[in-house]
């Protein structure tokens, strides 16, 4: 292989490596792909050039090779422009379809013209291989014009981009690319066009090899300045493609660089429609400019509430998060915007609110129930307390009667005990004395038992019931016990008590102590209503066919006026003097009878007397 062929061959491999390298770096980025295509032009070119670099190949072979690799040299200018358009972020131009027509139509046309013999027309044998001559037709001039203009335009794009960009890295990249491409363009044109045109064939055409300088510059930019390794575009595309939130990457001039799928779904645009356009086209104007200033100062803004404008002009409320995206060198690369669809948030908030309301209502309900239960408990407690208070008030009223009741037997006990002691002191103690003493002791025992009974009944009456458990009880017994405590009270007031308790009286279920309280209240009321003496008749009988027991208390007292009868069961209602009554007796009695599922009724005729009727449900009958 000749030295020249080897040179092309090596170049071929270098281009091939570059091609692989660029795609390897980032196969998905458009920049890398276009760059690879540009490199591929030179891959074809250098490969074809091998076959005109040695005379061992025939003229026909050389022509065939030339026709093949003309694809490379006809197209590189177009790919170069494309590459630099991408590099310079000329999104708007790239978006237009017509761009690709004017880019590639000439390349195809000139390739066709080469194949049909309008460009390189002849090959001249040289010591280094084959030289060639350009045709004299207008086409070869047009070709010169085409590639020169395209290449200059491409260089201009990079130069302009490098001049305008504020990013130092991009400036450096642009500088390298402009420099290397200009060198390669000039040397290549000299080698392949000017010298051939001037029929100076001693120097072989080396534009393809010389272009290594240019493409080497690009690759240098890649490795040295990371042109293709990490770009905002690729980062956004790769990482954020699967995000649920809408993401928009915009450049510092607020033009959209890319958007993710979520944004497209939300807005109803196609990606190509959005890229390159101002972000304000999809944002509902508002105070974007002000917010942008704020963003530049702070670096990040959150909860910017604004609206998206969809392709169908619908407004979607969004909460926008914006953050400056900086590169390694700390330069502003773009702005990341993440928009959250507030409709969903609002819906969720609403739902949460509703749930909270439901939960709160449930909580309120629960608290109310607890409170009610507590109040109920308190009420029960208060009622029990009231019953007890009323009872103690009644016991208080009994005081005098009970003292009288107790002091009589106590007087007997004390008297007999002292009497016997006197007798025992006497020297003589006859059998008669002995008999008398036995009689006195009997009296003492009897009177002691009487005291015991009174105290027991009093305690039984005044004790607060441990449990209000209803047990079968004998009303007759309960009445007698009650009378044993307060009977004397009546006697003192000259009230004749008569009881008529039917022997077949049915038992009732209840709390003895509580029912006795009711009876005591009624009896004490009767006593107080009869200050001048009179009668109290107590009757207890079964009511025929009703399984109920009726207890009547009929007194011959002063009676109750019709008006007072209306209030008789009200708590604290009393007609008595302040120290004589609490006004609780009957209201508590009413309550107790209610608890026993019974009924209490009062009938009265002023001046003639009062009848209290207590009806209780019977058991066992």
């Amino acid at each position, binding site marked *: 292989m000749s030295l020249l062929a080897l040179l092309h061959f090596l170049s071929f491999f270098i281009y091939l490596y570059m091609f692989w390298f660029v795609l390897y770096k980032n196969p998905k980025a458009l920049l890398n792909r276009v760059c690879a295509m540009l490199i591929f032009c030179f891959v074809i070119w250098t490969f074809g050039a091998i076959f005109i670099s040695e005379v061992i190949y025939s003229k026909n072979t050389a022509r065939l090779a030339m026709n093949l690799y003309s694809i490379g040299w006809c197209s590189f200018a177009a790919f170069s422009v494309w590459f630099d358009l991408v590099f310079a972020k000329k999104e708007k131009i790239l978006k237009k379809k017509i761009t690709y027509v004017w880019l590639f139509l000439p390349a195809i046309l000139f390739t066709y013209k080469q194949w049909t013999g309008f460009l390189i027309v002849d090959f001249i044998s040289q010591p280094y291989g084959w030289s060639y001559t350009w045709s004299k037709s207008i086409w070869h001039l047009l070709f010169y014009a085409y590639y020169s203009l395209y290449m200059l335009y491409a260089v201009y794009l990079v130069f302009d981009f490098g001049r305008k960009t504020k990013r130092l890295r991009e400036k450096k990249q642009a500088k390298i690319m402009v420099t290397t491409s200009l060198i390669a363009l000039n040397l290549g044109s000299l080698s392949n066009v000017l010298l051939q045109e001037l029929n100076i064939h001693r120097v072989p055409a080396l534009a393809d090899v010389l272009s290594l300088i240019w493409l080497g510059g690009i690759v240098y930019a890649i490795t040295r300045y990371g042109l293709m390794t990490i770009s905002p575009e690729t980062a956004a595309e790769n990482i954020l493609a699967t995000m649920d939130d809408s993401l928009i990457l915009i450049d510092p001039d607020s033009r959209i660089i890319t958007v993710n799928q979520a944004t497209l779904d939300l807005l109803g645009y196609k990606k190509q429609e959005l890229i390159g356009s101002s972000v304000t086209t999809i944002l509902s104007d508002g105070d974007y400019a002000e917010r942008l200033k704020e963003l530049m100062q702070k670096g990040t803004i959150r909860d910017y509430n604004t609206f998206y404008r969809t392709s169908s002009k619908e407004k979607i409320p969004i909460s926008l998060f914006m953050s400056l995206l900086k590169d390694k060198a700390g330069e502003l690369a773009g702005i990341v915007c993440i928009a959250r669809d507030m409709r969903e948030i609002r819906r969720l908030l609403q739902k949460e609110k509703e749930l909270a309301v439901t939960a709160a209502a449930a909580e309120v309900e629960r608290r109310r129930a607890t409170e009610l239960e507590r109040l109920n408990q308190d009420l029960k407690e208060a009622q029990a307390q009231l019953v007890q208070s009323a009872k103690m008030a009644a016991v208080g009223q009994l005081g005098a009667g009970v003292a009288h009741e107790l002091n009589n037997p106590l007087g007997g006990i004390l008297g007999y005990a002292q*009497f016997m002691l006197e007798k025992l002191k006497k020297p003589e103690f006859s059998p008669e004395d002995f008999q008398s003493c036995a009689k006195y002791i009997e009296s003492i025992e009897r009177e002691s038992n009487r005291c015991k009974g009174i105290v027991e009944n009093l305690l039984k009456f005044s004790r607060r019931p441990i449990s209000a458990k209803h047990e079968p009880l004998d009303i007759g017994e309960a009445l007698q016990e009650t009378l044993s405590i307060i009977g004397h009270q009546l006697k*003192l007031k000259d009230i004749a008590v008569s009881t008529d308790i039917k022997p077949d009286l049915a038992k009732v279920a209840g709390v003895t102590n509580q029912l006795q309280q009711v009876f005591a209240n009624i009896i004490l009321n009767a006593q107080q209503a009869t200050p001048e003496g009179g009668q109290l008749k107590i009757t207890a009988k079964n009511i025929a066919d009703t399984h109920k027991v009726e207890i009547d208390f009929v007194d011959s007292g002063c009676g109750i006026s019709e008006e007072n009868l209306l209030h008789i069961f009200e708590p604290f209602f009393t007609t008595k003097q302040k120290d004589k009554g609490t006004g609780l007796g009957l209201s508590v009695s009413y309550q107790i009878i209610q608890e026993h599922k019974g009924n209490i009724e009062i009938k009265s005729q002023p001046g003639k007397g009062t009848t209290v009727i207590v009806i209780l449900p019977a058991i066992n009958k």
Partner: protein
Amino acid sequence: MHADIHILVVDDEEVMRRLFTDILQDQGYNVTVVCNGEEAQGKIKDKFFDVAFIDVHMPVMNGIQTLHVIRKISPDTAIVMMDSFPDVLSEEAEKQGAVTCIHKPFNIKEVTEVIEKTIAGKKHPKVKE
């Protein structure tokens, strides 16, 4: 010993009547016991009593009413009231001419002492027919 001394006891309590009977008879007094004021009225009309023990709290006629009745019929009978708890009636009785008032439960000495004092203070008892 004291057989000529007549004592009347008015009490609705049976044990009291028995106690008075037993104690005073043992000491030789002539004891008459009745249940209430009405009965007392009947007895006092029949004979003179040196001392009358009257319970303040009684049915039918209370102690004060009984006191009035006795004083009306037999003003020279010494009257001793008995009560089982301090009461306005007791004070009232003393104002109305009762000698004294003893409180149940009393010591039997109080009873005998009050009788002896009363007798000592009355040299010439009169019988009112």
